[in-house]
């Protein structure tokens, strides 16, 4: 019965918490384009799969070259190193292995290890041949190399860098797909040098670096498509490994992953394309090598500047977005906090009132009970005529308790009943209540004035209880006045009032005790009461969104002013937090 003045939110009203959630989701969606880590991971896997397939296709092309004897398929570029038969087979094996790893099928794990292991073994034995100067007879095991593209080593033998790459990637690819952390570190440690070797070979081929020194001789001896295949394999291994390995930032959510995914392909393609273009210009005789170096410098400056400003712009956008999100979060937090404070204040007020209420009830119900027990005991002891008087007191106390309980019920009902507001003719209601009271007290003559034509917006039954309580009081406290006068009317400022010329009260002693349950200012037996009437009145006025106050002085009568809110009471009930 306490919580009516801060009614719990009805289901129709949207609680503050729901609002917070909605806004948070909205700003989350804004960040979503950058943040979807799961989606990025699956896209990365698709890229790795593509790279595996690409490498396998290159292997197939090389094999086709050997099967059908097509030099263009073996070397691609006229006069360049050819892809050997072993290389084509191992490339196919590692490409398939990578594709299987990237596709994520766990049951092919054994096959992946077998393919990788076979390719790594080919690489390892070829390297051994180089180191030991031996010939195990594996170089021409698949096809005879007649050296039409020009022989650099033993016929059919792949370049040492090729063999090294097969060894490293044959180990890296199965490890990249495995579950162990160490395995993934080793995979990165193998795939990164493999990718560098492939890159050097690819660029050396594209730029047609002449094999005129030991360094250039050994670094450019992979066929151009072999180098491309290795680049695809090593990048694929790194990508597959990206969930845990060195490249995990590109699989990460947030702006870091977004940036890495955007910048990495460009940082690979732009220098290659730019360098090639500059070199082709030089070869065509448009300018000399000095200008080439200058052009490279300019190109690097331009590319880095462009990349930096792109990055900076992107970061600025992300920063602004994050600041916006932070601000809105902060605002929501503040709202939430003030909401919590408000609710806490309301709850502690309700708690305090409830506590005071229980205290008063236990106190006020104990009084009559003590009387009942005391005089019952006395009646039992004394008997006769005296007992009748004692029992009368017992009955009166019992009735008093009944009255208290009745009023309490009324007070609690006030909070629970659904209001049905409408236009109420207060003047007619007041007159009706006065007639009732006068009818119930035929012995007293009280002159009453009711200002005609007063209407209000509110709940008729509740307003009747309000007027009954106020007029009852006025009636009661004029009992000792020679010419009692009770008035109902409205002030110019929109307040209604009930006034009397009765006993009045001491405003200092009254303060806010007046409107609390069970607080009585009078102990005069001529003015019986329980101190619930004005508490009830206050509750009704507050349910209508209004205020109630009392003015008075001892012996000068009392006036109770109340307002009923201009705002429709129903609207107020729907928004208890406002």
């Amino acid at each position, binding site marked *: 019965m306490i919580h009516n003045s801060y009614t719990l939110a009805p289901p129709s009203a949207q609680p503050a918490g729901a609002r917070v959630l909605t806004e948070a989701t909205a700003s989350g969606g804004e960040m979503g384009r950058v943040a979807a880590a799961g989606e990025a991971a699956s896209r990365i896997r698709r890229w790795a799969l593509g790279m595996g397939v690409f490498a396998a296709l290159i292997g197939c092309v090389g094999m086709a070259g050997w099967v059908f004897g097509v030099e263009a398929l073996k070397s691609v570029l006229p006069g360049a190193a050819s892809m050997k038969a072993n290389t084509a087979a191992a490339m196919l094996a590692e490409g398939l292995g990578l594709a299987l790893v990237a596709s994520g099928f766990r049951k092919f794990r054994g096959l992946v290890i077998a393919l990788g292991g076979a390719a790594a073994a080919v690489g390892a034995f070829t390297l051994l041949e180089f180191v030991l100067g031996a010939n195990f007879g594996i170089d021409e095991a698949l096809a005879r190399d007649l050296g039409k593209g020009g022989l650099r080593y033993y016929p059919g033998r792949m370049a040492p860098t090729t063999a090294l790459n097969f060894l490293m990637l044959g180990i890296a690819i199965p490890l990249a797909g495995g579950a162990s952390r160490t395995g993934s570190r080793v995979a990165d440690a193998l795939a990164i040098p493999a990718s560098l070797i492939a890159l050097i070979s690819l660029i050396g081929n594209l730029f047609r670096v002449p094999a005129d020194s030991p360094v250039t001789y050994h670094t450019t001896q992979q066929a151009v498509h072999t180098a491309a295949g290795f680049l695809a394999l090593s990048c694929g291994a790194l990508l597959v490994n990206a969930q845990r390995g060195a490249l995990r930032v590109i699989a990460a959510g947030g702006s870091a992953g977004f940036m890495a995914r955007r910048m990495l392909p460009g940082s690979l393609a732009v220098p290659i394309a730019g360098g090639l273009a500059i070199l082709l210009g030089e070869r065509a005789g448009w300018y000399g090598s000095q200008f080439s170096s200058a052009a490279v410098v300019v190109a690097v400056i331009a590319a880095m500047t462009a990349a930096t400003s792109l990055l900076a712009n992107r970061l600025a956008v992300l920063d602004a977005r994050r600041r916006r999100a932070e601000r809105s979060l902060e605002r929501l937090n503040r709202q939430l906090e003030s909401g919590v404070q408000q609710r806490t204040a309301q709850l502690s007020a309700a708690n305090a009132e409830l506590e005071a209420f229980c*205290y008063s009830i*236990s*106190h006020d119900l*104990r*009084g009559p*009970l*003590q*009387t009942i*027990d*005391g*005089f*019952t*005991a*006395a009646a039992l*002891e004394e008997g006769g005529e005296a007992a009748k008087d004692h029992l009368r*007191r017992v009955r009166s*106390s019992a009735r008093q308790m009944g009255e208290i309980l009745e009023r309490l019920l009324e007070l609690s009902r006030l909070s629970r009943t659904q209001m049905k507001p409408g236009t109420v003719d207060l003047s007619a209601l007041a007159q009706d209540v006065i007639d009732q009271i006068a009818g119930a007290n035929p012995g007293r003559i009280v002159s009453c004035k009711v200002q005609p034509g007063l209407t209000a917006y509110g709940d008729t039954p509740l307003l009747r209880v309000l007027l009954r309580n106020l007029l009852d009081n006025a009636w009661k406290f004029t009992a000792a006045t020679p010419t009692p006068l009770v008035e109902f009317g409205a002030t110019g400022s929109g307040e209604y009032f009930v006034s009397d010329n009765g006993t009045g009260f001491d405003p200092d*002693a009254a303060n806010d005790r007046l409107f609390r349950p069970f607080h*009585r*200012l*009078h*102990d005069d*037996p001529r003015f019986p009461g329980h101190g619930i009437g004005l508490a009830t009145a206050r509750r009704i006025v507050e349910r209508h969104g209004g205020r109630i106050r009392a003015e008075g002085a001892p012996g000068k009568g009392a006036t109770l002013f109340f307002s009923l809110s201009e705002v429709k009471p129903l609207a107020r009930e729907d928004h208890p937090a406002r």
Partner: protein
Amino acid sequence: MLGKIILLVEDNPDHQDLVQRALRKEGVPHLCVAVKDVEEAMDFVHARGAWEERDRKLTPALVLVDLKLARSHGHEVLRTLRRDPVTRHIPAVVLTSSVEERDVAASYEAGANGYVRKEIDFDEFGRTLRSVASYWLDVNVAPEVSPRR
């Protein structure tokens, strides 16, 4: 010997009656005078107003204060008693149905010497009153007070 005077400050006439009956029934050999509020209590102490006619030589030896008086709270009674030089040393015991900790503390703060809960059971209430009266009036040694200094 007439016995000593117990001054009861209680606004409910039924409860005044009950306290007096209980004391009588328990055979407490002292006189209980009931007044309804703090003004009447001070009138009695100083033998003025409605109590002008009483024997001035008699001073209450114990004051029982009901904590919840409608017009003036029991604590005000205690403070008034403690301010007045005549009554400041008279033992005052709060008689109430409340055992709220804050009421107990505030009562001692206002100058109470004891705090007793009114039992609903009349017989028990009587026994409580008897022990209160016998301690404060028979066992306890109070300073001599004179009605006029």
